[in-house]
């Protein structure tokens, strides 16, 4: 794997508070999601990647170079910060044009790119002449994304870009990111909306308390969870009979009964083995099953598992 971002024993602390605690990881091309609760160290990591903070110890490289005070490298990085901080007194085209000029675009090109990017992020043209103080949170997110795309970066760092977007907006944002990734832009994105990261990103990095709890491709992380118990909810004609039979077969690690509703919650030790035996066990128990639901191995579940 070509590594876009590489961290080795990277730490960053603020006084006695650890932002990142001795983390090592590799991030490759494509879409990578960074997941973690508030205070996990996501924004600190992004600020180190974009050269706004220096590591307290260890090394982080982007495209093989250290980002701090490295303008050459910054030409290849686009950054969209988390907070809805924008130049509120300005209009979006003027703001993007100014930032484009600072990035090294020529005057006409800066103006053209500004308009092009506003179109790309689907900010309605009627808002282009309004001051950004009047913008909704979702509109500000779009403008923030547009400024990150101005100079056509190879790597996009997006800190919670979905915040404040309505469902339609999120879908549009996801589509834009997918298109960018398809065109060869590597994207590192953090979000609290895990289902969206799950659908978007091949790879994830799970952070908590400044440490990396899991990293890699989603399928690999799922494979690592083989030994985790999985919870199933089964609605059936005789829950007590079914649970007794399953328990005797040694496939459960625990259960909860809601006899009145005919509902049985079971925790299965080895899901793959269980599903292999399930039909036979059901047949033997002579119980009629109406519904079976699995708390599937979603990113949310993975996240909950590794952070608890």
């Amino acid at each position, binding site marked *: *794997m*070509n*590594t*876009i971002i*590489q961290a080795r024993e990277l730490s960053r602390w*603020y006084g006695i508070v650890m932002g990142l605690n001795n983390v090592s990881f*590799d991030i490759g*091309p494509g879409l990578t999601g960074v997941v973690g609760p508030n205070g996990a160290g996501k924004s600190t990591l992004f*600020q180190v990647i*974009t*050269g*706004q*903070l*220096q590591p307290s110890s260890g090394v982080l*490289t982007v*495209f*093989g*170079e250290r980002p701090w*005070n490295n*303008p*050459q490298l*910054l*030409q*290849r*990085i686009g*950054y969209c*910060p988390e*907070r809805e*901080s*924008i*130049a*509120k*007194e*300005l209009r979006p085209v*003027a*703001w993007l*044009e*100014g*930032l*484009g*000029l*600072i*990035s*090294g*675009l*020529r*005057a006409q*090109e*800066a103006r053209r*790119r500004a308009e092009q990017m506003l179109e790309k992020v689907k900010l309605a043209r009627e808002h282009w002449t309004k*001051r950004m103080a009047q913008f909704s949170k979702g509109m500000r997110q779009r403008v923030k994304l547009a*400024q990150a795309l101005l*100079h*056509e970066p*190879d790597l996009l760092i997006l800190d919670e870009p979905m915040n404040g977007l309505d469902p339609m907006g999120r879908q549009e944002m996801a589509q834009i990111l997918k298109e960018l990734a398809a065109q*060869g*832009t590597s994207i590192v994105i953090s979000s609290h909306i895990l289902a969206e990261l799950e659908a978007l990103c091949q790879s994830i990095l799970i952070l908590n308390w400044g440490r990396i709890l899991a990293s890699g491709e989603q399928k690999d992380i799922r494979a690592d969870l083989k030994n985790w118990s999985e919870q199933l909810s089964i609605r059936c004609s005789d829950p007590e009979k079914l649970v007794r039979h399953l328990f005797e077969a040694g496939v459960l690690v625990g259960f909860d009964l809601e006899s009145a509703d005919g509902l049985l919650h079971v925790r299965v030790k080895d899901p793959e083995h269980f599903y292999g035996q399930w039909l036979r066990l059901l047949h033997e128990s002579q119980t009629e099953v109406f519904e079976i639901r699995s708390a599937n191995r979603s990113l949310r579940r993975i996240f909950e598992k590794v952070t608890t």
Partner: protein
Amino acid sequence: MSADIDPRARSVALRPTFWGAFRGLWLLAWRTQLSLRRLPLVLASLGLIPILAYATVEDEATRPFFHWTVEFYFLLGLPLYCLSVCGAMIRDELQSDTLGFLSTRPMTRARLFLGKFLCNFIWLQGLALLCGLLMVAVGWTRAISGITAFALIFLAAQFLAVLSYGALSSLLGLIHQRYMVLGFIYGFVVEVGIGQIPTNINNLSLSRHLRTILGNDRTIQDLYEWTPDRTLFSVAAMLAASALFLAAGAVLFTFREYHQSEEMQK
């Protein structure tokens, strides 16, 4: 494996230069300053002292006029205005959490600092020139003797004052969030204290050099007994001080981290 991955072929050409970046910063600066929220403040700060001077100075009242123009406007109001504008140039970005949009652009932090300073300097010079001309207009209207000869020296000294006080203020703004307090301490210790000591140590004071430059005007000589001795040295000292402040600011901004969370916690 870490790898140097070649950049993709771009559809846009990036040629980051200092002047290109300055154009961008200037575009953002003047549009922000002329926004509806700030414009009333700008106009008020521009017109307040000339209006007060016009209202309180009687015709041919030379001393009260120069009291307003030199002692109040030039030696107090102007440095404080420089402090509030240039001290805030990075702090404002930090407070509103927009510094990241600039510091992640392809230019060194030193260039960013100098570009921001240049924008604020030009803006301040424009305002100070207008304000200075208004003060001179008040002098003409009130038939103050020697106002025409004073005007040229006054405007030239003001140019240097804005440069040096602006550079100092931008450095103070980088040193601490409470740059206004730092500025007052500096003012009392260096300008009011050391600047009045009748030995060479008063060369450390910017206002002492400004007094020397203004001393080239005969009316000022008569009123304040400021002598124009070693005017060129004073001009050179102010230019050197400005360069020193800016260099220190650029170095500080290059090596020190500034981030919003820290700013908000203070």
